[in-house]
């Protein structure tokens, strides 16, 4: 049985601004086990970044505020910790890489120094010679060519992909148990994206670290994660194993997301690009019921009045949608997925 390293239970995070309270995260729960990769998917503004940063308490507090819920990492309550205690954890037990490698590195420090910084502050028993060796090894591990010369160079001398590798090196140098990746490939070319994802999978095996991958790119999700969580309007609307989500999604929002991926299947999609009409709700005044109701063609009266709980579809697969209520009218799954499920089953049979 795999060890559970992170437990997030009913997390609620709000931001107190001039104009009022923004409820960014409104009751999010998920677990993470050793050595696995969990993806958090959603549109901009759905609360995925805030959730991830909350695990490390990286949101500035104020204006961020924990309204409720728990975050238990390695058996310890993160929310109760002081700033000093969090500093111990950050970099050492949890590492994070960010979206834009160009702006996320200090332009006036060499890459080597930026790696060493985190290392020396957490593993002060190392001599500087030993630390240098560790840093160099890390650079080699992320497959930077000519690591020995490169380690003394500045970020502006690295290409985008190389910078992201450097970021990974910085985040993993102390062998953290958890790596949080906030849209690490969004700012990169597609070919580089693939390389970075491969690198991450590779490192995960070598260091046995768990990964939380935040992204809005469903291709990335399919590539790297074993389980997925779909967020919308500050809440989790569906969660499942990755395969299960692709072949048997149950939430209309997930349907919308998956169908909006342009498909090469011309026949099935009538040559039209499908998108979900409308925009995400304003979290100043979040709706009472399901946050997706106004954009959902299947929405019902109850959807606007009451927030749906998570209905269990199968083991490890839940959907917060009234359609999954036993008494709800049966809705036909969009043809796209039916086809996929059939082909999956067929493949399974062969």
């Amino acid at each position, binding site marked *: 049985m795999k060890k559970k390293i992170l437990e997030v239970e009913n997390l609620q995070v709000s931001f107190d601004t001039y104009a009022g309270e923004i409820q960014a995260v409104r009751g999010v729960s998920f677990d993470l086990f050793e050595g696995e990769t969990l993806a958090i998917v959603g549109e901009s503004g759905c609360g995925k970044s805030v959730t991830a940063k909350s695990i490390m308490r*990286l949101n500035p507090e104020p204006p961020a505020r924990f309204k409720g819920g728990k975050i238990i990492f390695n058996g310890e309550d993160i929310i109760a910790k002081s700033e000093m205690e969090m500093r111990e954890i*950050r970099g*050492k037990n949890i590492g994070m890489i960010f979206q834009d490698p160009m702006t996320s590195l*200090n332009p006036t420090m060499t890459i080597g120094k930026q790696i060493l910084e*985190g290392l020396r*502050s*957490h593993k002060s028993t190392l001599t500087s010679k030993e630390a240098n060796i560790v840093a160099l090894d890390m650079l080699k591990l992320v497959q930077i060519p000519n690591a020995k010369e490169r380690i003394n160079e500045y970020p502006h001398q690295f*290409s985008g992909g190389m910078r992201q590798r450097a970021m990974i090196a910085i985040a993993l140098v102390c062998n953290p148990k958890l790596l949080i990746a906030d849209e690490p490939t969004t700012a990169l070319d597609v070919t580089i994206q693939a390389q970075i994802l491969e690198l991450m999978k590779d490192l995960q095996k070598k260091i046995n670290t768990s990964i939380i991958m935040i992204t809005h790119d469903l291709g990335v999700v399919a590539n790297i994660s074993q389980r997925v969580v779909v967020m919308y309007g500050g809440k989790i609307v569906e969660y499942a194993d990755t395969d299960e989500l692709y072949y048997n999604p149950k939430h209309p929002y997930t349907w919308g997301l998956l169908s909006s991926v342009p498909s090469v299947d011309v026949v099935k999609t009538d040559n039209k690009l499908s998108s979900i009409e409308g925009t995400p709700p304003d979290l100043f005044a979040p709706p009472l019921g399901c946050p997706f109701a106004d954009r959902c063609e299947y929405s019902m009266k109850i959807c606007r009045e009451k927030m749906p709980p998570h209905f269990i579809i199968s083991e490890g697969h839940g959907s917060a949608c009234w359609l999954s209520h036993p008494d709800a009218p049966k809705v036909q799954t969009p043809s796209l997925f039916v086809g996929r499920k059939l082909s999956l089953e067929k493949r399974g049979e062969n």
Partner: protein
Amino acid sequence: MVKYILKRIFYAILTILCIATITFALMKALPGDPFHNEKMKPELRQALLQKYGLDLPVSQQYFKYMNNLVHGDLGLSYKYVNRPVSQVIKNSFPKSFALGWRAMVYSSIFGILFGVIAALKHQKAPDYIIIFISIVGVSVPSIVMGPLLAYYFGVNLGWLPVTVDGTQISMLLPSFTLGLSTLAFVSRLMRSTTLEVLGQDYIQTAKSKGLPTSKIVWRHVVRNAIMPVISVLGPSFAAIITGSIVIENVFAVSGLGGYFVSTITDQDYSMTMGITLFYAVLIITAILLVDIAYGLVDPRLKITSKGSE
């Protein structure tokens, strides 16, 4: 890197030549000649003109002038015929310099410090106090500040001496007043660059590494925020020089600035131009040094060989 420095030195020399030429041209543009004293006998006048080389055609005068400059000879005063400009400068500049470097040092150091503090305590009490000081420093000219401070701290409260007599403490008030506007300007600028840097992504990265705040502030915040401020220190040196003209008069310091004003009232134009040229060279040299320092500190200029691919 070397290329950068050489380029800067070249421009500096070019500029000095330009200014010297302009100064020369302006001197020639002044109406009449310096010896329009009716009492003077024509032979004496002719002899003086010859001595100064003012009877030569203009182009020859120009070359003589430039030649003299290279040898450090700024000409002779028109009023006090035996007094070379360079000697006057040599005698009175050290006092000005004593005030000037003090002002420069304290205003840059405190300016940077105040700016960082104000940014870190954004929109809290220290921020407002520092903003207030910097607005006052910029809006109240030294002509006003000088006498006011001299009166209140010198005469009324008797804490500080008002005239400079070579002691350390006597230089406190004048150099403080001299550097005040630079202090205000630097702290304002530093505050805004620091605020900008604080919002940058790499500060978030640093925080995510679990670094203590002091390290973050020093290595990441200040080091980046200070860049634009360094480049502004050069021209602020110019402000201190022009400021010294006022301060030295207010505090009765017998330095170059104090002397400068009297050359204008005396209409001793060769002295005025000579001192002006000296000031110009000083300022350009200061800017050059600051530019070089900037080039040494900014890694984007440090390394020009390997570009990013």
